[in-house]
């Protein structure tokens, strides 16, 4: 089922009774996925990566994302998909993945817990090649005002916003959400145009968090080892269009990053890669 | 360049039937063409020492020589009157010339060689010598169809070799617009040349081969034509003009495979820079053509100092300073060096609104005459050419009436071309033209102005 249809189904499901109270004990898997080079090129172009036959660190996320949605759109999923906010993301690459390798992708949900502002849940993806784990992803979503049966999941990872001069200024164009939606399949209406975004309480469309995360780590392409962990906290939504600044700072053998509004200096993203 | 519609129209059949006087199409030099397009009459009165070598020259160039006028059209008539000393000799000359002028072909050449009046031993001889002046100038006015008449006044001790380059020039198509001129030829300056008859240059099409020629004001107009013509004749060109004219200057330098030198000749250090360039880049210079000139026309009553000063500075002062530098410097001006200064008909006849310009151009004539003996000591010559009405970008901009009047008031009934000035300079610039020094040669089609 196409992601758009899944969103539609989830939107309908959100108002229907019968939602589950706990996480479904379910894992969705796809085996032997191969990366389409044309798609990889489109993704690299939108996110600012150079095109090589090695996958960008953030690329497997778009392979796992449809599976996440499929899981979250299911009636039994305890939180309604529309309105879920991506608040944090953690990627661990164990080694470089070549574009031709057949990838097995498994996605499940875990850590359904209370959050000061509602309830949060992690969608965990694991990518392996012939049984060898090559990539792990953990996306944390928040349902504002939602409730969770289990207790507090604990503090989000501590990350301070990096201060200092900008390494780069990005003029983030207004069609960035549509462009990333086209390569990621994340057609959440809050990213697509101002009208649909307004329906969800945003003054304008906002950039995908994972686009911002990808664009930031792309700026360090060539300076991050193949095996690395990329932790991201999403802060204020990045309204489209915007001028934002990327700040990079070497730290503990890796890098601290932040993306902030050029005018207000409000942080959109804080991250570490090491 | 020539935009002479009357000349073009007058050569059509309709114009002939309407009785429009024909404006002749002048024969001009093209490399590879023979010296003359037809036979020449070469004769002498008395013991003229030039007729024989000139006859040989004509035959060598591939044309036949006749001693008296017959049925055939004559491409040239050469009469050696250097031995004429009596009125009887003069009468004999008339007997030869009268049938001859009837047979002169279109663009034909009449060239008389006469004795130097100042050297005459008797009053009659002096009178006869001077009579040739009036005779030849009158013939010039009678000849039609582009034919010209000129007089070479030759010093008694000048050998035939001394007149060689001048005879070639006046017989050839190179002298198309030089008419009614009297040129004095003396013993060539510098070390005596091999006195063996007519010295035949190795290649008559490249008489300037191996010579370095500086042309000032070379970016456009007559200066550019001079550069082109001298290069065609074998010279290496150093094209000089003000820095602001550099774009055109580069084009002229490149099409002549020469060198562009952007230099304001009025600058204090201009002579030093010019000579330095010639010394360093070319090992010296053989021919300096002072062509650069400007006009800032205004009636004298309205003349301001700026107009006066700028014209005199460019047209005269700069030439004086460069010539002084060439005389002072021991090495830059090489053996058989030639200086040619471009004067003007205005400098001879004067011109309304051009007091500054005419003064500068007349000044050039005085300078040339004064410097001639000093350059001669160095084995060099200095001469002036004085163009009349030459078809240039400048004359194209004149009002039609002025332009037409300027064009027609001469024996050839047309304006000259820049190349006509250039050809004359090329002749004076040859190493074999050492017998011509301190002369002013008009390139004016025998204009009535100032004559």
């Amino acid at each position: 089922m196409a992601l758009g249809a899944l969103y539609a189904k989830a939107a309908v499901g959100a108002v229907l009774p019968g939602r589950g109270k706990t996480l479904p004990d379910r894992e969705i898997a796809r085996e032997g996925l191969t990366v389409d080079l044309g798609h990889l090129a489109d993704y690299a172009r939108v996110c600012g990566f150079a095109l090589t036959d090695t996958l960008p660190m953030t690329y497997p996320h778009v392979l796992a994302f449809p599976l996440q949605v499929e899981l979250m759109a299911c009636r039994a999923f305890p939180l309604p998909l529309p309105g879920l906010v991506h608040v944090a993301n953690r990627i661990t690459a164990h080694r470089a993945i070549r574009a031709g390798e057949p990838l097995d992708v498994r996605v499940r949900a875990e850590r359904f817990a209370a959050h000061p502002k509602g309830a949060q849940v992690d969608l965990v993806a694991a990518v392996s090649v012939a049984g060898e784990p090559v990539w792990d992803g953990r996306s944390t979503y928040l349902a504002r005002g939602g409730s969770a049966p289990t207790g507090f999941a604990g503090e989000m990872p501590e990350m301070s916003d990096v201060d200092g001069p900008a390494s780069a200024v990005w003029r983030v164009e207004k069609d960035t959400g549509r462009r990333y939606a086209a390569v990621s399949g994340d057609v959440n209406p809050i990213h697509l145009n101002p009208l649909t975004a307004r329906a969800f309480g945003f003054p304008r469309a906002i950039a995908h968090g994972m686009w911002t995360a990808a664009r930031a780590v792309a700026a360090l392409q060539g300076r991050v080892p193949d095996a690395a962990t990329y932790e991201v906290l999403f802060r204020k939504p990045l309204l489209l269009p915007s001028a934002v600044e990327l700040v990079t700072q070497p730290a503990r053998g890796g890098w601290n990053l932040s993306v902030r509004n050029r005018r207000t200096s409000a942080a959109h993203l804080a991250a570490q890669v090491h | 360049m020539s935009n002479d519609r009357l000349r073009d129209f007058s050569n059509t059949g309709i114009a002939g039937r309407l009785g429009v006087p024909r404006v002749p199409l002048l024969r001009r030099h093209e490399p590879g063409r023979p010296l003359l397009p037809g036979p020449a009459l070469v004769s002498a009165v008395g013991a003229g020492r030039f007729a024989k070598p000139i006859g040989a020259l004509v035959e060598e160039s591939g044309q036949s020589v006749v001693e008296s006028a017959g049925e055939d059209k004559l491409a040239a008539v050469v009469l050696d009157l250097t031995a004429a000393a009596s009125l009887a000799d003069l009468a004999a000359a008339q007997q030869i010339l009268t049938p001859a002028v009837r047979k002169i072909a279109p663009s034909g050449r009449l060239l008389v060689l006469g004795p130097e009046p100042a050297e005459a031993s008797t009053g009659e001889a002096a009178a006869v010598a001077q009579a040739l002046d009036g005779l030849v100038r009158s013939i010039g006015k009678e000849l039609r169809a582009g034919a010209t008449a000129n007089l070479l006044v030759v010093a008694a001790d000048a050998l035939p070799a001394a007149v060689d380059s001048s005879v070639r020039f006046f017989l050839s198509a190179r002298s198309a617009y030089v008419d009614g001129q009297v040129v004095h030829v003396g013993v060539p300056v510098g070390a005596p040349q091999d006195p063996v008859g007519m010295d035949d240059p190795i290649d008559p099409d490249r008489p300037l081969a191996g010579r370095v020629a500086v042309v000032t004001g070379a970016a456009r107009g007559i200066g550019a034509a001079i550069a082109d013509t001298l290069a065609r004749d074998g010279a290496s060109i150093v094209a000089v003009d003000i820095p602001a004219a550099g774009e055109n200057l580069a084009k002229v330098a490149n099409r002549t495979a020469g060198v562009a030198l952007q230099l304001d000749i009025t600058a204090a250090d201009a002579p030093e820079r010019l000579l330095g360039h010639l010394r360093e880049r070319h090992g010296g210079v053989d021919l300096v053509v002072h062509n650069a000139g400007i006009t800032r026309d205004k009636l004298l009553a309205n003349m301001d100092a700026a107009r006066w000063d700028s014209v005199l500075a460019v047209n005269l002062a700069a030439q004086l300073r460069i010539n002084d530098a060439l005389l002072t410097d021991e090495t830059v001006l090489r053996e058989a060096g030639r200086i040619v200064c471009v004067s003007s008909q205005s400098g001879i006849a004067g011109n309304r609104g051009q007091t500054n310009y005419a003064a500068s151009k007349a000044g050039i004539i005085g300078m040339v005459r004064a410097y001639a003996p000093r350059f001669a000591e160095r084995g060099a010559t200095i001469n002036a050419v004085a163009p009349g009405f030459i078809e240039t970008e400048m004359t194209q901009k004149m009002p039609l009436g002025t332009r037409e009047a300027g064009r027609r008031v001469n024996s050839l009934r047309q304006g000259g071309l820049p190349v006509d000035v250039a050809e004359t300079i090329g002749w004076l610039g040859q190493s074999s033209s050492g017998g011509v020094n301190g002369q002013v040669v008009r390139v004016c089609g025998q204009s009535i102005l100032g004559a």
Partner: protein
Amino acid sequence: MAAKTRQTRQAAVIGGNRIPFARANGKYARASNLDMLTATLDGLVARYGLAGERLGEVVAGAVLKHSRDFNLTREAVLGSRLAPSTPAYDVQQACGTGLEAAIAVSNKIRLGQIESGVAGGVDTASDAPIAVNEDLRRILVALNGARSASARLKLLGKLRPGQIVPEIPQNSEPRTGLSMGEHAAITAKEWGVSREAQDELAAASHRHLAAAYDRGFFDDLVTPYLGVTRDDNLRPDSSVEKLAKLKPVFGRGEDATMTAGNSTPLTDGSALVLLGSDEWAAEHKLPVLAHFVDAETAAVDYVHGRDGLLTAPVYAVPRLLERNGLTLQDFDFYEIHEAFASTVLATLKAWEDPAFSKERLGLDSPLGSIDRSRLNVNGSSLAAGHPFAATGGRIVASLAKALHEKGSGRGLISICAAGGQGVVAILEAVK
């Protein structure tokens, strides 16, 4: 290293030619890079009497380049009066292009691979290449490769009105999104370069350039083009007072010290130098103005590191001095390219700063100050303008001539370039 250098022969700077530089979208608005480069080459040929001559090599480039100019320099040679048998190739190193080209040619001369060569560059900000929108471009590329009518129709169906918006090349660094001016403003702030000092440098540049023109210094360095006889950015009457009235264009608040007057304008123009072996010059009776002694190129991490975009020459010069056993004070002329007045001043401050020199340059003591009366004595980019790839050729020719006039001594060239690069070189007078 120095000893090794001496084993090879000398490369001589014989002269140069450039066209007057013109402010963008002005007098040269209709001239292409090829037009300007060819005219400049022809002017050089005319000055040195090289019509029909086969030279060893012509090396030049442009920063803003059309796809049709893939063989720009060779095309210029073919359109010029040089022998068509003269080989040519393009280089491109942003504002370092012209100097890097001169390094390439002089190195080949020193190695004996060629006897003579021409180096330089050209740029037009007026006739800049404008690309179609990236999406449109991709569709057009695919359309070109489509084999069937239906495939083409399908592609045409993807066209959207918004794709007609063209992409105009921007004077900004691809990796930082900041314009050069914005980068320079960061460096100016870091080094505390004052507005007054910048304006003084700019006024001096205009004054020096105007004086050089007036004394005929450029008579054999510049050939007019399209009726322009002098750099049209030159304001001979420029003064600190006039410059002080201009509003800042880069930087913020009190740190905003950079104006249109103390920054170079977008400029069109072209410049070349003639290089050769001493023997070749002598054979052609051409004067040797100076010898091209040595050169160094440095680069800095201006993206994620601490260095400013235009500060690479700060690193290049000490390395060049060390290799040649020289100090910063051993020069009679300093040609420091004025991308911005603040760039020159920050560079000088860095060389004077003990802490910076120790920590960043690894020097026990700073390079020290220069005699400012020897800096850009015949004007530089603030007055002449800065057609990116042409600046190197302008500087090499002008410095060589200044050394020739002086008759002794040496000169230092320092050019900063986009991408955090810097190209520096030493010329020496021929005694």
